[in-house]
């Protein structure tokens, strides 16, 4: 299947390897990602705090760009924070005609208009519901057998919009991980908050929350994430040395793709234990 692709700012910076591995994985799975031309920031946390109206306008601009492609494709978003912002804007614009009119007057400035018809989907949603599990199973040849993986979902791909998984006891990654031959760590920290952006300004918060999460992951060979913010926090506040990799990196490795093609040199945590366990 084909998708419109919204990488978001983090994937151009601190989460570069997430971007690289996403694109590489979809190519390997023979799905096409078309980057939304001229996309801009979704507003992140900042817009919501200081300017509520801009926090709708900024994602709306990107939705409008997606609609302008006239492809009717779903928008795939790997960053959970961007996903929530785009999704929320889409819901608000869909339900509130007055707001939509107001936003469109602003978007006129860029020659754009939004009607909120495009569907916003998280990377994990796409991977679990559009048939990737079977293809990974076919291609991976159980390459990851012997590894125990802790799936870490974080918050905003699960909540508040309950789209593709249980918001408290998520399970969607299980099938993907098993498709690689690896085992899933039975833990219940997968949907527990890592501190997100609070960890940037209040490091002691991140340290404690991440500590609790990694403590429970100690019997796993690696933690797999689907959000740049989670990845950053889990890697930054390592109390013990636990490899943390992005889900597309992990799936890519399971398909036998070269580590460099998945940006595996860019992770802040030491992921050699995962790389070395991969069957040649």
């Amino acid at each position, binding site marked *: 299947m084909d998708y419109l692709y919204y990488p978001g700012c983090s994937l151009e910076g601190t989460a570069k390897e997430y971007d690289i591995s996403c694109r590489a994985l979809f190519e390997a799975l023979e799905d096409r990602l078309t980057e939304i031309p001229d996309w801009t920031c979704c507003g992140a946390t900042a817009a919501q705090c200081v300017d509520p109206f801009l926090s709708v306008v900024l994602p709306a601009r990107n939705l409008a760009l997606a609609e302008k492609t006239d492809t009717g494709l779903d928008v795939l978003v790997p960053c959970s924070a961007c996903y929530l912002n785009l999704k929320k804007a889409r819901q608000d614009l869909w339900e509130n005609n007055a707001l939509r009119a107001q936003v469109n007057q602003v978007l006129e400035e860029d020659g754009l208009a939004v009607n909120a018809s495009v*569907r916003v989907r998280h990377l994990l949603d796409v991977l679990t*519901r559009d*048939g990737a599990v*079977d293809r990974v199973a076919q291609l991976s040849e159980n390459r990851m057998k012997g590894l125990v993986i802790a799936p870490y979902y974080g918050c905003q791909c699960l909540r508040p919009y309950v*789209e593709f998984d*249980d*918001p*408290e*006891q998520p*399970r969607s990654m299980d099938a993907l991980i098993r498709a690689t031959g690896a085992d899933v760590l039975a*833990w*219940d*920290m*997968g*949907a*527990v908050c890592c501190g997100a952006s609070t960890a940037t300004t209040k490091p002691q918060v991140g340290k404690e929350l991440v500590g*609790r999460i990694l403590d*429970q992951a100690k019997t796993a060979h690696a933690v797999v994430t689907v959000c740049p913010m989670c990845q950053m926090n889990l890697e930054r506040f390592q109390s013990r040395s636990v490899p943390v990799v992005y889900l597309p990196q992990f799936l890519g490795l399971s398909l036998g793709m070269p580590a460099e093609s998945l940006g595996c040199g860019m992770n802040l945590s030491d992921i050699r234990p995962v790389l070395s366990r991969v069957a040649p």
Partner: protein
Amino acid sequence: MTDQIGKTLVIGGGISGIRASLDLAQAGYQVLLLEQSDRVGGLLSQLDTQFPTSTCGMCRMLPMMERDRVDQQCLRRGLSHDNIEICVSTDLISLKGDPGNFSVSFLSQTDGGRDDCPVLVVDDEKIVRDSMKEWLSEEGYPVQTADSAAEALNLLAEGSFKVMLTDIKMPGMDGVTLLTRAKEIQPDLAVVMMTAYAAVDTAVEAMKQGALDYLVKPFDPDAVLQMVDRIFKDAVAENARKDTVDAVILASGATFFQPNLGINPYGYGRIPGVVTNLEFERMLSHAGPGGMDLVHPVTGRPVTRIAWFQCVGSRDIQTGTPFCSSTCCMISVKQSLLAKTMYPQVTEACVFYMDLRTWGKASDDYARQAKKAGVRFVRARVHSLAPGLKENDTGIPVVWLDPSGDRRESLFDLVVLAPGQHPDAFLSGFAKDQELTTDDWGFVRPEPFLSGHTNRPGIFVCGGATGPRDIHDSVTGASAAALSAMQVMASAGRQTVQNPEKTESTGLRSDGVSLFPGALVIGGGIAGMAAALAIADQGFDVDLVEKTDHLGGNLVWLQTAIEGAGSFLEEQTAAVQGHDRIRIHTRTCVADTMGRPGQWNTRLTPVKDTAENTDADRPEQLAENGSPPDKSSGGKSPDVQVRHGVVVLAVGGAEASPDRPLPDNGPGIYTQQQFQQALDQDAIDTGSPLHVAMFQCQGSREPGRDYCSRICCPRSLDQALRLKAGHPDSRVVIFYRDMMTPGLSESAYTEARKAGVVFVPYEPGNTPELAADNTGCRVNWTDPILGRAMEMAADYAVLATGIQPGLSRDLARLFGADLDRSGFFDQADIKWRPVEAMDPRVLACGICLEPGNLALTLASARAAAAKAVSLLSRETFFPGKDTARVRSAFCSLCQICIDACPFNARFIDPETRTLKVDPLACQGCGICAAACPSGAAVVTDRSLAPMIKTIHAVLNQPL
């Protein structure tokens, strides 16, 4: 046609259905009782004990009169009565018609049942397959699953299915293609599409291609079952049995919320020590899984620390349940008390609650007993038992916040969840089919002022189908519904079954006894009027006695506060006054009574002290009531003798006066009733922004008056909302202990919060301080959440003092009844025989029976009338086989046996001056025989010698 015996269909064999059936059967009508499950008794058959007796009292529902016509056995094992045809494991297939002529068809699950209706579930997601299989199998459908369309086609080729539920979006062949292919294999297959979220369009498209219907994920199990049930019923309708009935009583009950559905924050089904309260009830039972021991269901180790979590699937919008389930607080109080007292090993019994809803007259005292026994009550809602908190060897860690915000943690062996009551799948389907009016949550909404009437004439409703109900309310409501059915049958000209003994080959029995076919109703408030009307409408004479010079009681001042109550009161008064079978005696009270129970001859006398006769509730007054002076026997007439077979006490009650000295009775301090009257008379300018402080439980729920009056919290909410509607800037603060808004009345609580009313909880001993002077009132308190001292100036302070019953002990004793510890009518059993004394001919209703609002008052009045009618309808009663008799030669008339008899069955015959037994009232218990010092009291067929022999035999042969 007219000599046909009346027949009523009762749907549901839980306690409501049993109660309604027994009332109808006792009155001589026939009952067809349908029950879906394989036994009668409903939820209650799984409960060993009920509060406040801490025993099971279900068998107390069995008739007291002519008890030989019913198997006198444990009702949890079964029920049988000559006039009741019980069909268990039976589904209602269709119901059509009007009062007096409903045709019903129904089908036993054993012939052409659900096991002949195999279902195929196709979905690529395992969790969907597994849960659907679980739900459907539980209902008796054989289920097979397939994880792909290809697999499904294989299964279809191998064997036949009636129903196929298939996902649309699947890898490989999709559901729509599967639909087409499956129809080729099996053209009559009913196919239901399952689709996620937004893809409804495809499902609709599939229906054009032959799909029967579709379901949207995530599924509500009820919706799935309803869908499959509908298909099943259509398929089997031709095998069904048919019958004709006059009236229908819907008593299908409610179902418990399943805690593992939805987000399951307490890990039910995942964490081994987490159980529901029904499961715990079985663990407590000596006949349960642990036998005499209370052990952990998985580890088998003794349980010592138990936590109860309230409001699981109640008062929780996240589970679609904005209402309170009414009963769970008391179930947990009971379980914690029993656990603590039955098992000394239990060191920690802790109930986590939001408001402890101990409403009604016996609950609060029971909760106090639990506290005394060492049960800990913690006002906190535990958010979850996961994540990060796994059960380990030391127990389940439970974390909560105390009011100040501090984190607390304790370990427990067991966590007992108290799941709420929800409407069940049958109810929603039935309500839809029959076009019954339901509320926002799917419960059937009874018509106002007509307890148990639905919007469909001839179809009545009671119990859990009307909302979360406890045993007491269910049993009362069931009798009221039975009365409504009797009314339909009477107006259709139907007959009752009379004296089957006459027609049997054994010939005529000579020991028949009859009641005088008339009723005395004491109290002309709305309860007394409703009871009198219902009895008179069934063709019996009623004497209605009222102490004051007018009818209406408390509803006179309350009528403007309740929507529609004014015209209702007017209609009822006119109907009573115009009824040719009702004699009204105003300004009259009961002087004394002669004769024996069932043949009473009661003397009525004018009220003497004219200064008091407008004050309806002087406890020292023997009785009450009357009508306008122009009609009836009036105040100045001489004494009147009335004969009656039953008596209904409906003397009412009044607002209790504040039992603590008020601060100078300053201006602006009102009782709740005074405030209501001031509001109704527009003496308070609600259009201006007022500051009002309301104080709940003033003198209530404390030693001395240790019951909850059940009406004050809803009334305060009503007043607060009125003030807020009058002026949104009005500041209303309600100081409460536990907001008692059980059931659907929870919504008023939510409304009040929405309107900006502030609620401040307090505990006895930490009550807010109210001071008043000429300038107004001042309230000081400490907010438990903020931890700050707070203060407000109030224009008005409103004290909710609750209800004080107006029944005197003398009056109750005159008819062999008594008062309970709080001064209300002492029921034979608060749950199972809620409107009658030990002697079933002595009935009570309204607020002298128990505190309650207008709806409850009317329900108890109609229930009492149902009891009266079913007794009066019988021309002759035949006593039970085992009854006591008196060997007069040995009797010294010491009368010890009269006091000892709990059933009011023994009396001295004034004519012969000998001791007699009322064979109808006597239950053959033998207490008299044990009490009699001279061997004069004996029980038929139970002479001493064989009894002693039996005891010896038992003692010599250990079991």
